[in-house]
């Protein structure tokens, strides 16, 4: 049984919209279930957080975490969809994976996504930017 099948069996109730291709396994997970899934991926399976990416869509913002299961080369990518674009907020995974500290700060910096329970929710790259950048990657950003 492959790692993906094992994972799917265990979490079939809380994951949806799966895409499984070329060693990358993407799935949606609700904000309240994110930590359960991440805890399993990181602590039980020993996955490594490779990175996280944010994307703004027409009616939502999504955050995609990329976990690499190094012994098998398989990637697990939980995606959280945030409907509230005015005040996007999701649960931070820093209490489980310390390595997510900076990438969550970057997502906060560029997309304005607030991470609940993040110990140090400051901007990362535009911390003291002279143009006072505010969510520069969003559609409705003001040109500076």
């Amino acid at each position, binding site marked *: 049984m492959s790692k993906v099948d094992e994972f799917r069996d265990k979490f079939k109730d809380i994951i949806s919209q799966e895409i499984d291709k*070329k060693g990358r396994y993407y799935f949606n997970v609700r904000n309240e279930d994110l930590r359960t899934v991440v805890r399993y991926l990181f602590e039980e399976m020993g996955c490594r957080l490779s990175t996280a990416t944010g994307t703004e869509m027409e009616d939502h913002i999504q955050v995609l975490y990329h976990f690499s299961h*190094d012994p098998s*080369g398989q990637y697990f990518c939980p995606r959280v969809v945030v409907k509230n674009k005015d005040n996007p907020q999701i649960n931070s995974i820093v209490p489980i994976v310390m390595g997510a500290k900076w990438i969550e700060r970057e997502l906060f910096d560029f997309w304005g996504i607030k991470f609940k329970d993040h110990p140090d929710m400051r901007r*990362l790259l535009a911390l003291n930017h002279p143009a006072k950048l505010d969510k520069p990657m969003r559609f409705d950003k003001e040109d500076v």
Partner: protein
Amino acid sequence: MTKNRIPLGPFHPLLEEAEYFELQVEGETVVDLDMEIGWMHRGHEYISEQKNFTQSIYLVERICGICSTSHPIACVRAIEDVDNVEIPVRAKYIRSLVGELERIHSHLLWLGLAGHFIGYDTVWMWAWKYREPVLEMMELISGNRNHYGMMRVGGVAKDVKPADIPDLVDKLDMIDKKMEMIAKVANDDPVLKARLKGVGVLTHEQAINYCATGPTSRASGVPGDVRRDDPHESQSSPL
């Protein structure tokens, strides 16, 4: 002991690029550190949204002058992935060849700089002496010592000429021998040991928690090698 705050940067002779460190020190010991890393942020993601596929390869090549193959290789592979492009086997090997040569010169570069930063310029001189032939090899293959411009969607820009191969092999053999010598010298060197041993230790748990990769994680006892775990190009089918 009182804690002191020492600002370093964003523009400082020691730093290669603009970055800001705020050191908390107790006497000679750095006990805490805060940093600002956005000084060189140029918004490549945003710029590349406005470029076409071919232009974006050149753009990402300029993210880093030292690792100027890793970003374009990731970029062309992503584009090929979207379009299900299969590239010729020879192109796969040439991509890996360029990538591996870059890795060798990059490791020699940090080794030299590490020596330089701790005030031990002999290490710097030796490491960079043998980095030079690697750059010459890159010039022979691609025409450039840096920013090789070898990656194309669907393959590579240039073939490796058969007439150049004996020269490349000779240089590789020479570097191989010299690397063994350098590894032996560096491992035995009392100055390096005195300066580096027990400084800035990353424990096994920290390496896992902070998701360290490559040599950094291996130094903390976490096995990890992306070439083995997630092979690409010719790495999955070496000769």
